[in-house]
């Protein structure tokens, strides 16, 4: 019988995911020991990887580029913020669930209008949606706190009140909490992209007309892709809130959308684990560059151009080509 999986791209398997998860688990205590400031960046990286992975279901697999995914980061973060501010509810799991539901609902509503478009129209439409919500967070300060934002206290994790723990231990516990959620999100995404649904997304990306000729309702499936990616990004936004401890309009700004796009491209959007690798590396890269110079925007721009020129298929694409050359040399 024919085997379909023989030509999977580099890293598109559960073993690769397992290795990454174990690496993120082991790396945290090591970093905490040798360079404490860098340990928390790993947690940020893992959270951003959830957002980038979700974004890539829409971009890499379905072929829809969005410049407005900060929309869902904002929805996720403000769900936690508003829940704390108005309901004094500090159970994070409730917030995560609400964030995912609200992100999904927003994606369905926006998507109903936007997935009729593709290419630059889709990208700009999403950007506009993001900016509308950013304007709301900024100007409706009596609800959102405006530029001051909303302070987030320590949340209870799995019903356990952690407010008395020292900050280091709390951050470490939070890292593993995030990692477990990320592991579930990674595996779920892997199933999605390798399932009939994932193949349907790829078909729409390759040729929407041909997909229709197979009887695929492309409108419906593009809406599904947007909703899944929104759930992932919303979840990431909700996980960011307790770590940053301040929910402000910055999280929903278009720059954040650009960051998600770049993380995905940096890692390699044609590779399943590319966005995960890209998100973690970008988080460290950004932090290092900011620490080095006040001209970090400039330096980051140069870095982005360099990546596009040297490794247009991202880090995974670069590794893939190196491995192929190595194999060719050996044979």
């Amino acid at each position, binding site marked *: *019988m*024919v*085997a*379909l*999986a*023989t*030509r999977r791209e580099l890293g598109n398997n559960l073993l690769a995911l397992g290795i990454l998860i174990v690496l993120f688990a082991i790396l945290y205590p090591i970093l905490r020991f040798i360079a404490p400031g860098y340990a928390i960046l790993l947690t940020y990286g893992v959270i951003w990887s959830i957002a980038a992975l979700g974004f890539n279901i829409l971009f890499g697999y379905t072929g829809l580029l969005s410049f407005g995914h900060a929309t869902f980061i904002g929805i996720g973060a403000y769900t936690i913020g508003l829940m704390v501010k108005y309901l004094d509810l500090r159970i994070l799991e409730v917030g995560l669930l609400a964030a995912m539901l609200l992100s999904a609902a927003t994606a369905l509503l926006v998507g109903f209008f936007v997935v009729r478009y593709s290419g630059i129209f889709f990208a700009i439409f999403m950007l506009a949606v993001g900016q509308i919500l950013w304007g709301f967070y900024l100007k409706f300060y009596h609800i959102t706190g405006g530029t001051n934002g909303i302070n987030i206290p320590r949340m209870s994790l799995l019903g356990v009140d952690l407010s008395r723990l020292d900050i280091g231990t709390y951050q470490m516990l939070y890292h593993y909490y995030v990692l477990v959620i990320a592991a579930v999100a990674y595996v779920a995404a892997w*199933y*999605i992209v*390798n*399932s*009939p*649904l*994932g*193949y*349907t997304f*790829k*078909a729409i*990306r*390759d*040729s929407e*007309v*041909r997909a*229709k*000729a*197979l*009887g*695929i*309702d492309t409108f419906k*499936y593009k809406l*599904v892709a947007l909703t899944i990616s929104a759930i992932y990004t919303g979840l990431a936004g909700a996980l960011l809130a307790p770590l940053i401890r301040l929910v402000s309009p910055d999280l929903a700004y278009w720059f954040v959308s650009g960051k998600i796009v770049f993380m995905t491209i940096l890692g390699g959007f044609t590779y399943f684990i590319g966005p995960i690798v890209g998100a973690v590396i970008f988080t460290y890269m950004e932090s290092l560059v900011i620490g080095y110079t006040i001209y970090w925007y400039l330096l980051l721009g140069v870095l982005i151009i360099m990546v596009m020129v040297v490794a247009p298929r991202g880090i995974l694409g670069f590794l893939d080509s190196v491995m192929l050359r190595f194999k060719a040399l050996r044979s």
Partner: protein
Amino acid sequence: MGSVLLRVTDLYKYFGGVRAVDGVSFELAEGERLFIVGPNGAGKTTLVNLISGYLKPDRGSIIFRGEDVTKLSFIERVRRGIARSFQLVTVFENLTVSENIALAILSRRKLNWIAYKTVESFKDVLVEVDELLKLFDLARVADRYPTEISQGDRKILDVAVTFALRPSLIILDEPTSGVSTREKHIVMDRLIKALNATNVTSIIVEHDMDIVFKYANRVIVMNEGRILADGSPEEVKTRDDVKRVLLGGM
């Protein structure tokens, strides 16, 4: 031949002042293999676009299996059993040959929405993929991407994907276009073998007269949006007006 599968009545399609399809009517019985021929701009592709639902007619009706499908969308017609391939090969370039076929089978079975099982775990789908790969002689390139196979194999893959939908009516728009002269008969042999094996009703748009007269059992000749002749290859090729249009007066 069986009962009437498709009835096209008084079909019109204008593009501005151009009459692409100008009052076309014909019937197609179950199991028939119809070739549509004609010079460039005769309206062949527009006609099959109208039948498949890719374009909407300005006037006229299309009855398929007794149901008026004239106003149904492209996707709805696929679901009712009208499947087509395109003049330019349109396959999914980032899926392997076997994955292209698997996706068509999954679509036919309405399994696209499943997200909790990998495609590989659908063993019955893989068995069917295997059968189609053998039927179309694509097993040797099953694991390759469409960009890695010959143009002839790409054309065959396009047809195999359409076949995987198990349609009642299959429409193939110039299945040998862009294929080398040497490959044309190989492509057609494999295609006709599959048509015979499945006994599916077919409409094939073709411009190569050697191909048409070798494989057709019914031919419609179109010119300037109208049907000029309709009959067996032997009947059609002896007509002077057909010779004039197709062979430039020979």
